[in-house]
């Protein structure tokens, strides 16, 4: 399982990376915004995308939309981990096809629960 972690704050990327490692996901890569992430996703064989929303350059929501619009990536599971907590934004993310939404600050258990739920759903639909 290869996971791409996208956040403009390197500390947050490290936190998520460590939490994922704790959950048994050792194969991770990092990007600091959508513009860097998209080519990595297009050329790499990623199985899962964890992204922040508010980033300079390309924002997480636009990255999500770009992923859904890309034939090769359209089915990639995407988890948004963001400080944006407004209803409108969560609805927008849902409409754009997000698989999970975690509001910062979050705890390790929440992240674990959301990731497990995403994969349960994917397995159930296969």
């Amino acid at each position: 399982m290869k996971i791409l972690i996208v956040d403009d704050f390197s500390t947050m990327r490290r936190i998520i990376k460590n939490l994922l490692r704790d959950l048994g996901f050792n194969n991770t890569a990092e990007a600091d915004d959508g513009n860097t992430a998209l080519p990595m996703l297009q050329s790499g064989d990623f199985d899962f995308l964890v992204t922040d929303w508010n980033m300079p350059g390309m924002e997480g929501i636009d990255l999500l939309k770009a992923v859904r619009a890309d034939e090769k990536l359209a089915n990639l599971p995407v988890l948004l981990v963001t400080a944006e907590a407004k209803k409108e934004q969560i609805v927008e993310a849902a409409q754009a096809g997000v698989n999970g939404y975690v509001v910062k600050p979050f705890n390790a258990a929440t992240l674990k629960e959301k990731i497990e739920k995403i994969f349960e759903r994917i397995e159930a639909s296969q």
Partner: protein
Amino acid sequence: MAFSEAILSEQCLEQAKGLVKSIESGDENAAINHLREISRINETKMFQEIGRLTRELHDTLVGFGVDTDISVLAEHEIPDARERLSHVINVTDQAAHKTLTAVEEAIPVCRELEDSASKIELQWKRFISRDLSADEFRELSREIGGHLEISADRYAKIKTYLNDILMAQDFQDITGQIIRRVIGLVQDVEDKLVGLIKISGSLDDEENRSEKNPVEKVLEGPQVPGQESATALKSQDEVDDLLSSLGF
């Protein structure tokens, strides 16, 4: 404007000289023409002055718009920024305490494991060099058993403390986002002040005046206590409820 005024004065002087000459030579018609010309020049001057006043009025009105922005900054955005920065202090304070608490809790656990292992190691060396009595060996076995018994539990504890330290570092992201917004505000204040200085210093420098409105911020970043948006959800549970109502 100074240049055109100089031209007008020169024209005036010319007409005046002509008027004197016409009167001296008794040419009445020429004298009347010179007088008419002088009054035309005066009218031109008056229209120029009206034009200047109109432009000043326009500039003042534009300047008033900038003033209104500044009052919004002073009344709302600066107090908001103060609260945001206070929140940054609280968040960093909590993160530091969370980290220090985890370290304080973890150190005695490490020491306990270290002491127990050192004690066993000392006896183990004596055992290897066949320096241990049967009673001492029984004692050593008990100690090894005890050490193994607590190890799993203590290492799990240490891992929890390390995890707490890891999670405490999320303050950098949260506070970074808040501080970025305050930096944006400081930039806004700077632009407005520069605009004001330009208005009071020179009324002609209209082109360079900052008329930029604060950028409409769609994303709000971390919610700050006391300043939560009306539609902001308060917890992950509320986010989950909303998502499940959307069919997630």
